[in-house]
């Protein structure tokens, strides 16, 4: 919570004036019992009607001024809290944009989403509450005590004891219930998880007729949550009765000792007792507010901690410069070069071991290997989604670490394994790589990607709406649109990461043919498990368990590389493979 205070610094004015207004209002409120005591002791006792009217008028004025200052405070509080929330959201979004894949893996995107939405809202609310109430309650308590002291010093001891008892009660109940609140949050996460599983696995659950089992799971976890919630409510429900007892016992004491004072005649009047009772009531009311506030603030501080965790996560892959660097595009410089590259995720075994190869400008390269052999990891090193643990990756003769991100990544078109489109029109989606792309560019790309046929059949063509994730298109259509999206920017380097898996062979072949014909200068890397897809590639790289076990063309690899030969023969017969 404290670490995020820099956000309040943007709203210094609001954060100082706001509480001051509230204090002012509280002072006015504290004057009310005093004025009322005056009315009783002076007006009523002396039968001074004019005095009563005058003081009555004063009460109305106090109320009106109080209203104004409360409104100013509310205005400033709203401004500051919404401002803090907006800035937090903005900075989080920016910060997440800077994180590299390794950090995203660690934090998990679903969790980042809740942090940017739910957790910022919690902090935002707490700022408003703090400005409005946090200074007010202690002030009322202290103010009431001071006022009590001016009325009768000895009697104010009762106030001190009551205040301490209330503070102890608050502390005890809060420290006991906070851990249970945290447990409740975890139990709610569990319910959410079971729901998610039941929605995503609905077919499997129905296929295995496991509905009853799943019902039992949710019954248990909801019962668990209800029990814990009810248990914590035994505790939290204690808060107001206990405060009530403390303040009212204090009132009994005030009356009792007050009676003795009045009887002894040492300057105390019955009006003073009324005033003291009123101040005690004020404390009771203020404490009820504090109790609610404490719950809110504990929730918010948990959220603040989650936000800080994000802010404190530093991207592991950083730009070393933002200035474009000079590159060599001569024929002799390889487009891409891997030199003794090793890579590991965190602490595990090497994902990639001692990888070295060169790709020439304009070549089409196939990258093939079994499940989990490191193909995707290898291509992720080129746009610096991850950094090589050892060795260097170079593009156009320069280490990728020397590039600014934009210069490096804008020349690479990537078609990821998962075909995801974004909400908007097809045209919007096609402009991701190059925001100035013309319709002609887009149509061209769609044609190469074998997507123009179905897009042109759509009623609205390029203006057709794409739902979140591209759900309104079939898997194959989505994949082709993703390929077109990467092609629209006419990238110099195209990386297709297992991007044909949802395409049937005919479309696959037509697509490759079109790619070959239309992208003469483009260097293309095709990651795949189908050997037919890359049979005709200029260079084939064969990966096995993180090691490069073969590089060359189909015919020589089929003869010499055992792994490649096995892969081919698992898909085609000898004759087909040689064809």
């Amino acid at each position, binding site marked *: 919570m404290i670490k995020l205070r820099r956000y309040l610094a943007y709203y210094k004015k609001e954060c100082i004036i706001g509480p001051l207004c509230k204090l002012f209002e509280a002072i006015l409120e504290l004057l009310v019992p005093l004025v*009322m005591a005056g*009315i*009783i002791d002076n007006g009523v006792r002396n039968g001074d009607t004019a005095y009563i009217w005058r003081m*009555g008028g004063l009460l109305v004025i*106090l*109320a009106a001024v*109080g*209203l104004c200052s409360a*409104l100013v405070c509310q205005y400033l509080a709203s401004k500051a*809290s*919404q401002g803090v929330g*907006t800035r937090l959201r*903005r900075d989080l*979004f920016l910060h997440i944009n*800077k994180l590299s894949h390794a950090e995203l893996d660690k934090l998990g995107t679903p969790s980042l*989403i809740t942090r940017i939405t739910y957790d910022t809202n919690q902090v935002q609310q707490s700022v408003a509450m703090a400005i409005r109430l946090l200074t007010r309650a202690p002030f009322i308590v202290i103010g009431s005590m001071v006022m009590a002291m001016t009325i009768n010093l000895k009697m104010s001891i009762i106030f001190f004891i009551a205040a301490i008892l209330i503070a102890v009660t608050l502390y005890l109940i809060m420290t006991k219930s906070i851990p249970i609140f945290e447990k409740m949050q975890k139990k709610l996460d569990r319910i959410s998880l079971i*729901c*998610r*599983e*039941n*929605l*995503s696995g609905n*077919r499997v659950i*129905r*296929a295995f*007729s496991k509905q009853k089992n*799943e*019902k039992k799971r*949710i019954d248990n976890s*909801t*019962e668990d949550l*209800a029990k814990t*919630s*009810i248990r914590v*409510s035994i505790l939290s*429900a204690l808060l107001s*009765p206990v405060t009530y007892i403390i303040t*009212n016992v204090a009132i*009994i004491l005030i009356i009792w000792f007050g009676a003795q004072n009045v009887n002894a005649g040492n300057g105390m009047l019955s009006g003073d*007792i*009324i005033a003291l009772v009123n101040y005690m*009531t004020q404390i009771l009311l203020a404490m009820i507010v504090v109790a609610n506030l404490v719950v809110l603030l504990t929730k918010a501080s948990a959220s603040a901690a989650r936000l800080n965790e994000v802010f404190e996560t530093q991207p592991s892959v950083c730009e070393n410069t933002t200035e474009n660097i000079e590159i060599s595009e001569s024929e002799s410089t390889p487009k891409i070069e891997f030199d003794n590259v090793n890579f590991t995720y965190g602490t595990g075994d090497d994902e990639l071991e001692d990888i070295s190869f060169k790709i020439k400008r304009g070549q089409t390269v196939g990258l093939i290997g*079994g*499940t989990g052999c490191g193909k995707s990891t290898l291509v992720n090193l080129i746009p610096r989604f991850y950094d090589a643990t050892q060795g260097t990756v170079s593009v156009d003769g320069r280490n990728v670490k020397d590039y600014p*991100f934009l210069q490096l*990544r804008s020349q690479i078109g*990537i078609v990821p394994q998962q075909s995801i489109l*974004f909400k908007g029109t097809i045209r919007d989606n096609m402009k991701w790589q190059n925001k100035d792309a013309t319709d002609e560019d887009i149509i061209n790309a769609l044609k190469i990607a074998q997507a123009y046929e179905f897009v042109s059949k759509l009623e609205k063509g390029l203006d057709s709406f794409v739902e*979140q*994730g591209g759900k309104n298109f*079939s898997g194959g259509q989505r994949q082709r649109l993703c390929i077109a*999206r990467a092609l629209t920017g006419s990238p110099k380097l195209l990386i297709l990461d297992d991007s044909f898996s949802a395409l*049937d*062979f005919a479309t696959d*072949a037509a697509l490759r043919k079109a790619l070959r014909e239309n992208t003469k200068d483009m260097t293309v890397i095709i990651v795949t498990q189908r050997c037919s897809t890359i049979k005709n590639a200029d260079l084939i790289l064969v990966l096995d368990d993180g090691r490069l076990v073969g590089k060359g063309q189909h015919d020589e690899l089929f003869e010499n590389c055992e792994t490649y030969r*096995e*892969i081919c023969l*698992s*898909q*085609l017969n000898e004759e087909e493979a040689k064809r």
Partner: protein
Amino acid sequence: MKNSAKKSSSVKKVLKKIKPYSFYLIMALVSAIISVSLTLYIPVLTGNAIDNIIDKGNVDFASVLQILAYIGVGIGGVALFQWIMTYFTNIVSYRTVRDLRREVFEKFNTVPLSYIDTNSHGDLISRVINDVDAVGDGLTQMFLQLFSGIVTIVGTLVFMLTINWKIALVVVVLTPLSLFVAAFIGKMIHNRFTRQQALNGEISSYVEEHIGNQRIVKAFSYEDRAFEEFEKYNDELLEVGFKAQFAGALANPSTRFVNALVYAAVGIMGALFAVAGTLSVGQLSCFLTYANQYTKPFNEVTGVLTQLQTGIAAAGRVFEVLEADNEIPDNSTKEIEHCEGNVKIENVNFSYTKEKPLITNFSLDVKSGSHIAIVGPTGCGKTTFINLLMRFYDTDSGKISIDGVDIMDITRDNLRKCYGMVLQDSWLFNGTIMENLRYGNENATEEEVIAAAKAAYAHSFIRRMSDGYNTVISEDGGNLSQGQKQLLCIARAMLTNPSILILDEATSSIDTLTEIRVQKAFAKMMKGKTSFVVAHRLSTIKESDVILVMKDGNIIEQGTHEELLVKGGFYNKLYNSQFAKQ
């Protein structure tokens, strides 16, 4: 008007759900009445006590002591019943929350599958979690504030009337003013609040899309543009949020102002009456306390107004799910005890949306023990065919029967027991690997599980994991690769020992070498049993008895691999496209 009708019906429906807990509710209400009445009575006692303290040497200690004793008992009563009220109210709302969650959840498994397919999962989950929570909050607030508020208002009025009806009348006259303020501000909050909620939803969905797919955003250097778009939403939220919050925040000072005015009026009038001698000082003192208490509920109701309104809106969203139509109930006129695996499909028509017919006049007769492969371009209806076989969706017309029994005449459970299936989307749950493998067959022994895992080539990687078969699969399955997940799903299906096996792109993420081995295991397992295999990789289906070539929802060719090649049709083209010269 329509809106308010909908509002009240949501409230009514929620109240219906509370019925089982009427006992607690009545107890809470009784406690509220007792504790509020006592709270109101104590100022009377305090006033009486003060009346016995006149001035020096003129204090009736015996009476004061007696009154203080009453106050003490009163305090105890208030505290006890206040606690009971809060506790019981919490019991009611938490149990209602629990019941609502269960009901919505149960709904997930009883609605037609199309409901799950067409609604956003994030949204449905948010209804179970956030909306039900909001309903619970609203309930708690409603009972605690509204009921005790009403009791307080009525109570204070009664007390004030008994003390001095004239001043009480002033209070009654001023009542409409605070009601008016509360109502006016309530209205203002509601509209702005709805707008704010809508924007909040938009931001969430934008964030979900762009942070959720951060990898693609990075790949396209789209960060800056995404940020610009996000800023638009964010700035708008700032504006709307500020207005909503400020409008909402107006309620409290405004009602407090009314409160203060009432207080001043009571003070002036009370003092005047006291001067005239019709009111004692003590009575005035407790009158003032009442004036304070009387307006407090108005304050508090405006304070929780947003919560109440969110609760009502949320209840609407919850009931929307609860009121969705269920699947056609099971018809169990017949039962298949031992499935032979004869599948007959006659003149089946089906479409997801009325306008776009997908499967038309589809017929097929499959004899027990034959291996059927289904191939065709994407979107041709392969997966739909599986959906119909398993009754995830029901046919629009036509008949599917197994061993001569119409699948509409048996329960879905009975039907699905006949099948074992592995789907393209490999689903596992957050439990141990052992639990996941036993999902379809709880009675499988450990030996059987391991044998199945071995057959699916999953045993070796399972053994290498930190806790072997007891390794817990993480929530997003992140500790397994896509291919490994598929192998586990295959092992899971192998354990069920079904009569009919359905494989829908079951091996798409597995490398071809492993795939061939797994295919062999399948072949062994399926000896003499019927199987349906959907595949892109034509290499995996060459050995099938019948290959169905589907296009646009129809079977356009059928036969064995060799027959179809000779025929030189669509299959031939499809097959040879693998070797097309580039």
